[in-house]
């Protein structure tokens, strides 16, 4: 019914004793995610959330003790790269990094390292993943999406919530929603998710939510034209953004005439993708 996360996900939370880590661990637990352990160096041996989840000093110890196969990172930007390296080194297959504000050179080193390790990173600067009814690994509100056959992949956070909510109001459900994050260099990109959705038996159409900056949407368009049999609808944010400014996300910037919304929309439309004028229009593109 999904990609990347499902009922079998055994989640570990890095930075579990921090404010955000603890709050969202509770939220994920309430949603039904199988959280097996947490990591905070120096707090090994403690238990959090009324003794429900054990805390370990390192990822490796947590993996050995609890068999976690997925990690979510709520660690401040200056420590987050290390947390990702640690998770990749301990053999975690899927690493989800929520942290915003990681320096881009750190991300280039991270990205090249995890490729060597064969791990998959989602994020950073992302809301994580949601497979409605099965597992939530991230901060997407659980009550704005229902189970269904639409795959969603997005560079944004709240804009994604907006789309999920619009779908739910039309009684349209989601197989998995992946927030790939708003940084210029991230782990998993559009094409990775599109190919997973294309292979997933329970996804029959896909929504892509992009924004200004970079050329990932253009590359996705090329991929859709040549590799996708399932229909794709899209929305691109930032048509009114001025050039040379970071629009909140580090990666959302039009530079030297590159990364414009209009080019992305044109590329997608040429690939046969229906592009919505605003997010609330998306559900109608599928009917």
């Amino acid at each position, binding site marked *: 019914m999904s990609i990347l996360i499902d009922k079998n996900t055994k989640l570990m939370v890095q930075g579990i004793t921090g404010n*955000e880590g603890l709050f969202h661990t509770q939220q994920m637990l309430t949603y039904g995610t199988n959280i097996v352990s947490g990591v905070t160096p120096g707090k090994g041996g403690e238990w959090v959330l009324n003794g429900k989840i054990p805390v370990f000093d390192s990822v490796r110890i947590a993996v050995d003790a609890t068999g976690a196969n997925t990690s979510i990172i709520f660690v401040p*930007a*200056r420590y987050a790269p290390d947390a990702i390296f640690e998770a990749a080194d301990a053999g975690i297959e899927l690493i989800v990094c929520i942290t915003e*504000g*990681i*320096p*881009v*050179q750190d991300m*280039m*080193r991270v*990205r*090249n*390292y995890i490729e060597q390790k064969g791990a998959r990173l989602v994020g950073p600067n992302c*809301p994580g993943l949601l497979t409605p009814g099965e597992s939530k690994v991230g*901060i*997407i*509100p659980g009550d*704005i999406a229902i189970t269904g056959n639409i795959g969603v992949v*997005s*560079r*944004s*956070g*709240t*804009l*994604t*919530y*907006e789309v999920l*909510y619009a779908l739910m109001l039309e009684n349209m459900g989601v197989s998995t929603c992946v927030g790939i994050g*708003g940084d*210029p*260099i991230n782990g998993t990109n559009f094409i990775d998710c599109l190919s997973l959705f294309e292979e997933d038996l329970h996804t029959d159409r896909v929504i892509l*939510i992009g*924004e*200004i900056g*970079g*050329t*990932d949407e253009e*590359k996705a368009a090329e991929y859709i034209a040549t590799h996708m049999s399932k229909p794709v609808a899209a*929305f691109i*944010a*930032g*048509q*009114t*953004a*001025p050039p040379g*400014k*970071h*629009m*909140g*996300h*580090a*990666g*959302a910037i039009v530079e*030297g*005439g590159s990364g414009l919304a209009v080019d992305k929309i044109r590329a997608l439309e040429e690939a046969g993708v229906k592009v919505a*004028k*605003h*997010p*609330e229009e998306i559900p109608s593109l599928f009917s």
Partner: protein
Amino acid sequence: MKLHEYQSKQIFSKYGIPIPKGKVAATAQEAKLIAEELGSRVVIKSQVLVGGRGKAGGIMLAKTPEQAEEVASQIFAIEIKGLPVRKVLVDEAAKIDKEIYLGITNDRAARRPVMMASAAGGVDIEEVARNNPEQIIKVHIDPLLGLRDYQSRDIAAGIDLPRELWRMFGQIAASLWKVYIDCDATLAEINPLVITSDHQLLALDGKMVIDDNSLFRHPELAEMRDLDVEAPSEIEARKYGLSFIKLDGNIGCMVNGAGLAMTSMDIIKLFGGEPANFLDIGGGATADKVSAALRIILSDSNVKAVLFNIFGGITRGDEVARGILTALEEVKSDIPMVIRLVGTNAEEGRAILRNADMITAGTLVEAARKAVAVASGEQIR
């Protein structure tokens, strides 16, 4: 964050990259003294953070100290693309045989740094990239290995640099790489790197952009920020951890999340309005942050309406509502406000705002339509 030419070149020099003799002046008189000290022909260069300084009359030669003073006072008197000239760099004029380009930047698509060089230096490199891309040599650098010597040699050969300069070029390339890494630059550029008439390499101009996200580990660079390039409201917003960009329209926007904030601007435009700003109040925004944000929006006299679009996730609707009430008590504004509140604690938020004089909307489209209408003077409730 962009650095000035003189700041970039000081950093280059620290790393052993040869730069012309020179100093920064804040007055024409200082420029004269520096020219006297240098005792040669000088070039006076305005220090502003925009391109096209030469064309705007911001870079001029002077043969004598008196002429340096005169030229500098002319440069101090002009504005370049709206920016005042507060400092000039007085450099010894170089005898130039040839100009080349050398720079390092992040290649987003390749997820690696890329070193670029061109025999066509001294001109806008983006233009060269557009019109004559074959004139640019690009070498990607493994971020885990760093720049290797053979790569510098490949670049030197690729731009037909005379062999006797390869060693010196290699040292400059290695130093520029070190600058790029040590300063967390997203761009470190020498344009032009010149071959002088006595066959030396010299970095005549320098440009650096520092990754804003890295400033926590570069306090010395953070201090170099030039506030002239930012609107006062943007500087104020940064104090509160708000992501704010001033625009020219008349509908103020307060949104949580960058993507949704851009989308809200786009929808305003779609329905015939013009956004006055981009504003992302961030996840988990508290009441005092919201109230600061509203004050900043209302300080723009162009603003004729404000659109709030809050999709609660980590951000709670009741918290935002309390912030709005606090701000309205402080600012006392009769500018019409349209609010759409969805998600976490939205009900509670709406209840808090029940008695506030605000126009409510259920959907994004409805909110944008109403904001555009009231901004143009229509009455709706």
